[in-house]
């Protein structure tokens, strides 16, 4: 949605004051894309359908479900109150969610003492089924948890991982937080923008079709010692360069699935979302995925050095010492 040149300068964002809050890009005062309770945040937190900017190259088609579900303008309280009665019975067909998905939803809810705790995993489940958080998905969660669609929307719009538009087969997230950026992350992101012809949270190719890729810049991914990093479907590709990143997305576009540096054999974004909802497949599948590599040389740097130099922590006593008695009180 960032309509400006994605490649101006090597630091993409610096030319685009609002590149981060793409949802709010018309509203200089909205401040943060998370402020959906703010009257200024615009008429809809779901610009997916009717607000879709003309000329966005990303969206050539939308799935049927989205078509069939005239956007209810995600009733986020104040901002939508004047156009849409918040509690209007939602005429969204949740029939797109099959029995297996419903069964899984019930399993998720059963994990928690209070059903509402299931909301985040349920939204991950919705994404695994639909490729984004659709209106039907919002209604689905609302029905199951006996919440209003407004209550679900306000949560769905808060979290970065919940996508409001149909996503690609793969999600490529490039860390552009300071450390990675200084080591080349900005350059990698800019290169991929150009290569794919898209900006933040836009999709190259028809969403969901084989080889389609949604690109995003991400905040620190907790892998700074391996900077610059990127992820495909939240699996780590460490120590990247613009060249390696381009090679990676080209391979993805060809339908290949290069193995992550740390992580399980690559599947697709929707499958990862299913895992985030807590479904890892058959026990054997989980075991195989679990065994995907993890310990990068960086991870083990201190460990190896200690071994080399014969350094150890002070030795523990042979047996655990007796526990202390409880100091005064009681």
């Amino acid at each position, binding site marked *: 949605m960032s309509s400006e040149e994605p490649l101006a300068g090597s630091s993409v*964002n610096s030319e685009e004051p609002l590149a*981060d809050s793409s949802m709010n890009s018309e509203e200089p005062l909205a401040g943060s894309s998370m402020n959906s309770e703010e009257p200024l945040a615009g008429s809809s937190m779901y610009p997916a359908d009717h607000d879709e900017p003309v000329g966005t190259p990303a969206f050539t088609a939308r799935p049927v479900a989205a078509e069939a579900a005239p956007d209810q303008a995600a009733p986020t309280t104040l901002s939508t109150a004047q156009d849409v009665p918040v509690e209007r019975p939602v005429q969204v067909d949740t029939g797109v969610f099959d029995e297996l998905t419903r069964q899984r939803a019930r399993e998720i809810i059963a994990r928690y003492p209070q059903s509402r705790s299931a909301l985040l995993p349920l939204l991950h489940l919705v994404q695994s089924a639909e490729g984004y958080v659709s209106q039907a998905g919002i209604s689905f969660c609302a029905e199951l948890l006996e919440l209003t669609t407004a209550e679900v929307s306000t949560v769905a719009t808060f979290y970065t991982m919940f996508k409001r538009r149909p996503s690609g087969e793969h999600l490529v997230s490039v860390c552009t937080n300071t450390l990675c950026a200084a080591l080349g992350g900005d350059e990698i992101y800019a290169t991929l923008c150009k290569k794919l012809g898209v900006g933040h949270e836009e999709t190259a190719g028809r969403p969901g079709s084989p080889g389609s890729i949604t690109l995003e810049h991400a905040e620190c991914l907790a892998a*700074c010692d391996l900077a610059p990093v990127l992820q495909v479907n939240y699996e780590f590709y460490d120590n990247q360069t613009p060249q390696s990143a381009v090679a990676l997305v080209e391979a993805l576009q060809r339908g290949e699935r290069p193995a992550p540096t740390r992580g399980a054999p690559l599947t697709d974004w929707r499958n990862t979302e299913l895992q985030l909802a807590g479904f890892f497949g058959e026990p054997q599948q989980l075991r195989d995925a679990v065994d995907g590599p993890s310990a990068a040389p960086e991870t083990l740097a201190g460990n190896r050095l200690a071994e080399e130099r014969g350094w150890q922590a002070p030795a523990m006593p042979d047996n655990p010492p007796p526990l202390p008695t*409880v100091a005064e009180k009681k």
Partner: protein
Amino acid sequence: MTERTLTPVLTRRWAAPKSWTIDTYTRLDGYTALRTALAADPDRLIQLIKDSGLRGRGGAGFPTGMKWGFIPQAKPGEQPTGPAAKPTYLVINADEGEPGTCKDVPLMMADPHSLVEGCIITAYAIRAHRCFIYVRGEVVHCLRRVHNAVNEAYAAGYLGKNILGSGFDLDIVVHAGAGAYEAGEETALLNSLEGFRAEPRLKPPFPATSGLYAAPTVVNNVETICTVPYIVNGGSEWFRMMGREKSPGPKIYSISGHVQRPGQYEAPLGTTLRELLELAGGTKGELKFWTPGGSSTPLLTAKHLDVPLDFEGAAEAGSMLGTTAVMVFNTTVSVPWAVMKWTEFYEHESCGKCTPCREGTYWLTQILQRMVRKEGTPSDVETMLDVCDNIFGRSFCALGDGAVSPIRSGIKYFRQEFLDLCAQQPGQHKQAVLSGSAR
């Protein structure tokens, strides 16, 4: 300890083949502390952790034993009332998101069973029968490893009903987040876990009495809890052989950026940057600025090479220990640019609940972007400091305080660099200042 070296305790198993499996874990002394703990009086376990001086590894450094001691417990033989009558919860903060911080993720990937064992011992000590591990959503491999470890622990009888015949029951649920830095703030995390937006709650009441589902709750960081089994096995005296009086124990320092060998280095608390750099093979280029513990801890410079990096030492130097995320930057990196990037982060992650942070981070970002575009004026520096004064101490949670750290410290040590940007004509040297990407 006079000679400071590495002290692998939490990282000790990481290089073992398939370190994440229960077989490797038990072969390397795993689940031995659990047996000791389950045979003990829970109050004496809490006392042990108090005696050890263990402080929270999630950033704030709160004494862990004291936190556990705040959980209201019914007196023996009496009918519990008030909060003590409610179930107690243990919630693990595995939402690692502070820029620069990358210790919990490798820890959970390499040795998830140490977290599981720590959870069982902690839950037993605080009398919780439900534990939630809230893992940041973007690290699916980590989630997988923790999930698998929990499964293995159930199969081995370390979780579920009547653990090892002790009569103690515990269930662990692994929960994935959905991308929000603020969800790492402990009360926002509880809101998120309850299925709400990750906005913080007013304190008091504190989670110890009114946490998850308004019931008594302990929220601890991953590294904190992973340390617990070692203290049970080694005792508090052993633990205090590492680190310093008020900040005892080993700590995982995550060194990133312009160093020869970035990575995870576990050393006693109080280790200095000079020592860490030695371990990491020295800097790449000339050291310019660094953070002791993530972007929310004020920047330090080459003048601070000998600051002992523990809670007291970092504070005396005008910064904070934070998460011991040591990000090292050399002279190719522009301070105003780095500060701008971090401020963009805080702006994006501000939850929007309170005005100083929501509006302040927005406007600070605008000003910094303008400066980096060389369209700023010298008065912008004062304006930013003024905005910072209106955020710091006036925000609802610590994110706001953290957001001003890079700006205030950046200006404190590198004011001229901000002013120089203003002096330049628009467009001049643009590439050099914006890039920051020279390696």
